[in-house]
Structure formats: structure tokens, C-alpha cells
């Protein structure tokens, strides 16, 4: 049976509308994967001698165990942000003589072959081997440790599924987990209740009694079963398609009327965002990442590198732009033929999209003004970054959007719907940030900070002045790509 599933996966990968685009991204991802594998391997080898050198009297194994919980916590956070969950379109399979449990198992086992599950091995195995050779540990003990640690890493893998599942269905469900996590972190930090130390001690016991590696394995099985039940329970059409026909929210956004000819489209887009889970998350993300500056501004390490603040400025004022804008016009994919056949001039359609994102940049820029606490230069830089976003990055994103031909199913069943919530989503944002950082870095290095800020602002203002001309160019571009887009949006699935 798995053979058939693999065959389906293979076909859907090579026959998808976005094959060319995703192939390019995939190559980039492979490079990144190789890079990180190398880094982890290097770290895994260097860890043992490094600890020996820093504190000769300590036992490296115990030091590593002491920080294991912190490591797993970060692993969970990174997985949560970067790991795409495996997806499978179940509807065409439901009426066929395939047992549900097999489909569910396939999806869950497929996830084990993720790159993120390979990385911890690069760390654990070299370190374990060095512990045997130089640390005088027994082979069996270390084997138990490696198996135990890896089982925990895989537990993180499945635990992440459960969280991610709940997160996409209901963001508020995440709050208790975050609060519990933060409480433990705080208690640990203030040395009231050092959970990471206790966790380390448990791991030390594991090293002494390697057969205890069974416990994380049992935990892994339990988590697997939990996921299995979760998915199995969702294996009904009405769970996805019909179940949620709740009463419609008929908010009207009447205030958009002020924007004249683009008003109906703005209204449309706001409804799009509020009524669909995926675009709605972009709003939450924008608010969360507004606090991003707090990591960088107070940090001594970045004070000498103002180019980093450009990154923060572009990111904070443009997070909605990056997350929402990069999928324009795919958000409208399911009714794109209508948009093209209705009485909607292309120019107005594009202008309204740009208007919406510009508006978001302004709102985020205003919301980020409290950062003036860290100095006027930061406020000025953020305003310059906002201008740059409006003038340069928005047209760039719109241009990139004309290459989009991958459909986004807004009303797709919530059964594992994570289209585009993986690492590639962040990669698209890179050029938007690297270009201004580069300009600023050069100018700041050879002239000074103020000229750098001014330069970004001027670039943005030029872009804003040229916007009508840019729009004309985009209209030609989108008209040319229209047929390819309509064709691409017809293709459902991945």
C-alpha cells in the first residue's frame, strides 16, 4: 500500500503547477540543509574537547545533559516555525478500499524522513563516540544515551505536530503552552525551580542504566498514537468540508468607502483576511513580530552593527507585507477567472492590493514608534525602512507575484492544511531585506549613519513618486501572465 502512496507523491511533485519554482527553492534548501548538517556535525565533534577545555574538571556528558532540555526547547521552537508538516489529499482516497489507518500511518511515518530529524544525529553520535573514546564511558551506556536522546528528538517531532495542529485551528490554544513554557523558563532562570537541572539528572541516570532508554521510546509510541488518533478522528469529509458551516460574520468594513474607486476591493481583501484562517494568521504574526526589535535593540552585541537594525526595521514594518504580499495574487486563486472576467480593470485590482499592503506598512510603522525609547536614530531608521518598504519592496513583491501560479485553497479542509507555512516562506523574504541592508552597510561604513538612513528613505520616496508608472508596468506584466496564472490556479493540491 505504501508503494502506491509513494507513487502518488512522486506524481504530484513532478506534475504540480509550481514545479519549476519549487525546484529552484528546493535546490536552495538542499544547500542550506548541507550547510546545517556540516555545522551540526562540526559542533558534535567539537563539543567534547570544547567542554574539556572550558572546564577541565567537569564531565562533558553531565554538562551536555544539563543543557539538553534547553536544546530540546529550542528544537521545538525551530521546528514549530520551520518544519512543514506532511500533507496528503485524502478526499480522493476515502471511497477507495484503503484502510484509513494506513493513510494516517503513511503520513506520520513520512514525517520521520524529514531533514529536521536527521540533524540531531549529527550532534549525538559524534559526541557519544568521543565520550566512549576519551570519556571512559561504556559502549552500551552511550548507546542507550544516543537512543534515548534520539527518541526524545523524535518525540519533539510528533509533539510539534500536535501543537502546530492546534495552532492553525485556534491560535488561542497556544497561549497556555507558551505561558507554561515561559513560567518554567523564568523559574529556571531565577534558580527557584531548575527544571533543566532535574532533566539533566534524569539523563545522567539514563547513562548509568542504558535500558531506561525504553522510557523515551514508550513516550514516542504514545505520542505517535496520539497523533494517529488525532488524524484518524479527522478522517471524515464533514470534519473538513461541511462541519464548520457556522453562521457568517457579516462585518462590512464601511470605513473603506473613503478610499474611492479601490474601496470595494479593499473591503474584499479585508473580508478575505478576516474570514479565512490562513490569511488571518498573517495578522497575528505581524503583531507578534512587532516585538522583534526587543531582541536586538537592547542587546550590546548589535550596538556596533546598525546594519542589523535595518533588518529589524524592514522586518517589523514589513512583516505583513512579506507574509501576505508574497502570495499575491494567489489568495484570489480560487476565483481568479471571475476577477479576470468581471468588470474589474487590472490596474484597479493591482492598485488596491498595493494600497492594502501600503496601509499595513503605515500601521505597523506607527505601532513601532515606541521603539523611540531606544533612541531617535532607531525611530528615524524605522521610518526610513517603512518608506523603503512602501516604495521599493512592495513593487518588488508585486512583480514577484506575477510569477505566482500556485493555488492557495482558502476553504481547504483543516486536515493538515499547512500550505506554504514552511522554511521557503521565509526565504522569499530574504532579497527584500538583504538589498537595503547592503546599501545601508556600505554607506554607513564609508559615509555615516544619517546618510544611510536618508538614502533608504529617498529610495522609498522615489518609488512612491514613480508608483503610477510602476503600476502601468505591472499591469502589462500581469496581463501577459494572466493566461498562465488562470491555468495554474486551476490545479488543485500541491
Amino acid at each position, binding site marked *: 500500500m505504501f508503494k502506491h502512496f509513494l507513487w502518488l507523491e512522486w506524481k504530484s511533485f513532478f506534475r504540480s503547477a509550481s514545479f519549476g519554482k519549487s525546484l529552484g527553492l528546493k535546490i536552495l534548501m538542499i544547500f542550506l540543509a548541507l550547510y546545517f548538517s556540516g555545522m551540526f556535525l562540526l559542533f558534535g565533534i567539537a563539543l567534547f574537547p570544547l567542554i574539556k577545555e572550558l572546564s577541565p574538571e567537569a564531565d562533558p556528558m553531565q554538562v551536555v545533559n544539563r543543557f539538553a532540555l534547553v536544546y530540546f526547547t529550542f528544537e521545538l521552537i525551530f521546528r514549530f516555525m520551520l518544519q512543514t508538516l506532511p500533507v496528503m489529499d485524502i478526499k480522493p482516497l476515502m471511497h477507495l478500499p484503503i484502510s484509513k489507518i494506513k493513510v494516517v500511518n503513511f503520513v506520520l511515518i513520512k514525517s520521520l524522513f524529514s531533514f529536521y530529524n536527521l540533524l540531531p544525529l549529527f550532534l549525538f553520535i559524534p559526541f557519544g563516540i568521543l565520550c566512549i573514546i576519551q570519556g571512559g564511558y561504556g559502549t552500551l551506556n552511550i548507546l542507550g544515551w544516543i537512543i534515548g536522546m534520539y527518541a526524545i528528538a523524535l518525540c519533539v517531532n510528533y509533539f510539534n505536530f500536535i501543537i502546530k495542529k492546534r495552532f492553525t485551528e485556534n491560535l488561542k490554544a497556544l497561549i497556555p503552552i507558551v505561558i507554561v513554557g515561559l513560567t518554567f523558563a523564568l523559574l529556571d532562570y531565577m534558580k527557584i525551580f531548575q527544571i533543566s537541572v532535574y532533566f539533566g539528572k534524569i539523563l545522567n541516570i539514563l547513562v548509568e542504566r542504558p535500558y531506561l532508554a525504553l522510557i523515551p521510546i514508550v513516550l514516542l509510541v504514545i505520542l505517535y498514537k496520539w497523533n494517529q488518533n488525532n488524524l484518524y478522528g479527522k478522517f471524515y469529509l464533514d470534519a473538513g468540508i461541511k462541519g464548520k*458551516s457556522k453562521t*457568517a460574520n457579516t462585518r462590512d468594513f464601511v470605513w473603506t468607502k473613503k478610499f474611492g474607486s479601490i474601496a470595494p476591493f479593499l473591503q474584499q481583501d479585508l473580508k478575505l483576511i478576516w474570514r479565512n484562517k490562513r490569511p488571518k494568521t498573517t495578522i497575528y504574526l505581524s503583531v507578534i513580530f512587532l516585538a522583534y526589535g526587543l531582541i536586538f535593540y537592547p542587546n550590546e552585541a548589535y550596538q556596533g552593527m546598525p546594519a542589523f537594525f535595518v533588518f529589524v526595521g524592514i522586518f517589523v514594518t514589513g512583516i505583513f507585507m512579506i507574509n501576505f504580499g508574497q502570495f499575491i495574487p494567489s489568495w484570489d486563486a*480560487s476565483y481568479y477567472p471571475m476577477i479576470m472576467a468581471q468588470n474589474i*480593470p487590472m490596474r484597479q485590482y493591482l492598485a488596491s492590493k498595493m494600497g492594502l499592503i501600503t496601509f499595513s506598512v503605515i500601521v505597523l510603522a506607527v505601532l513601532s514608534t515606541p521603539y523611540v525609547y531606544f533612541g531617535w536614530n532607531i525611530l528615524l531608521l524605522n521610518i526610513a525602512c517603512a518608506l523603503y518598504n512602501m516604495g521599493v519592496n512592495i513593487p518588488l513583491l508585486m512583480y514577484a507575484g506575477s510569477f505566482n501560479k500556485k493555488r492557495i485553497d482558502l476553504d481547504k479542509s483543516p486536515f493538515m492544511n499547512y500550505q506554504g507555512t514552511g522554511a521557503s516562506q521565509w526565504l522569499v523574504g530574504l532579497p527584500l531585506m538583504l538589498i537595503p541592508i547592503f546599501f545601508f552597510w556600505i554607506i554607513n561604513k564609508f559615509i555615516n549613519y544619517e546618510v544611510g538612513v536618508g538614502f533608504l528613505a529617498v529610495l522609498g520616496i522615489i518609488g512612491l513618486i514613480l508608483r503610477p508608472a510602476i503600476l502601468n508596468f505591472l499591469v502589462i506584466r500581469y496581463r501577459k501572465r494572466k*493566461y498562465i496564472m*488562470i*491555468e495554474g490556479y486551476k490545479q488543485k493540491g500541491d
Partner: protein
Amino acid sequence: MITATNLSKVYNGTKVLEIEHLDIPSGQNFGLVGNNGAGKTTFFSLMLDLIQPTTGNIFNKEITVSESEEWKPFTSSFIDESFLIGYLTPEEYFYFIGELRSRNKADIDSFLTQFEDFFNGEIIGRNKYLRDLSKGNQKKAGIVAALIGDPEVVILDEPFANLDPTTQIRLKKILKELSQTAGTTVLISSHDLIHVTEVCERIVVLDKGKIVKDIQTSEATLHELEAYFSREIAES
């Protein structure tokens, strides 16, 4: 009103549509019939500039549809569910289309009253999103939306499919009135020969992309069509 000249569409070397000349005068109720793959939807998609013709052009009121957008204000259509915005309620969708065709809320509300029977109480005021409606009800909403703003040309692909019998009869009445009283040019396609002969003044039969029959509807038309479509079965 609508003229297609030298029109063809080729997909991967296969000609799916080839129309040398087709003229649809203003106010005509025009029906397109043909088996699957005959090119009906291809023709409508070309008319709406959703796909590009390989050769030739379609002129809608002398406007080349693939070169200008000027035909959009007086042309409206419903091809399939991809013309509906799933996360809107039917009312919101009607208001949105209304705004695109410069009709305000009050205009739309009074426009919708004439379709109360047609909707059969299942569309308006139900507080449901379009995506949560059944296929038939989605179709009803889409068809009515295509009539908003007194368009001069209305294009409906398979309007009778998925509708319940009562609604089919109501729709036939609406479509007949549309061309008779308002002088609208109505283009429909259908697999149902009875419906299409009842509604349309003129019926064109497509087969493998070519026009094989062009009939002014009369008493004998239904029989003629039935004979045509059963010829292969009769031969074998």
C-alpha cells in the same frame, strides 16, 4: 454583437476549436450544444479572454476581447464555481458585483426581489457563506449575479446542470424573458436538448471543435438534434 473570425485553439498539437466565422446578432438567445470535448467551454473561455486564441479573434461589440478590457462593463458571465468568492455570503457577493457594475445596495435589493421564487428561500438571509451552500444553490447565486447591472451580453455555461426540476423551469422562463424584454444577448451551453430547444432561438452544434449544425429553432429542431446525436449509436 459578437463575431468570431478564423478562431482556433490548439492544445499540444490538438485542435480543440476551429470556427471560421460565427456571428451572433444582438438580442439573440443563442444555444451551444455538443458532447464532452466539443469545445463549448473553450469557446466561452475565449470569449471572456480567460484563454488565448491560437489564431483569429473574437469581437464583442467590435472590441477585440484579447486586446482590450472595454468589453467587460457590458458583458457578464457564470462559467463555474470559480466565479464565486467562497468566503462571502450571497448578499455580500451580489453587493460586490453590484459595486463593480455601479449599482448601489438599494438597487441590488430591489433587483433581488424578482428572484425570490427562484431562490426558494435558500439563498438570501441564511447567513451562510457561499462555500457552505450546496452545488445547486451556488449555481443559483452565480446565475443571478451574472444578471446584475443589466449586461448586454450574458454567458452561462451549463446553467441547467445541478439545478432541481422546479428551478430549471423557472430559469428557462427567466432566460426567455431576458432576450425578449430586455434585448440581452444570451449565450448558453447545455447537454439537455429539451431545455436548449425551449429557450434558444438559435442552436449551434459543435463537434470536435467544429460547427456542424447551425439551426434556427423550430418545431422540428428537437427531433433533428436527437437524430444527430443518436446517429453513431444507430450506425453501430
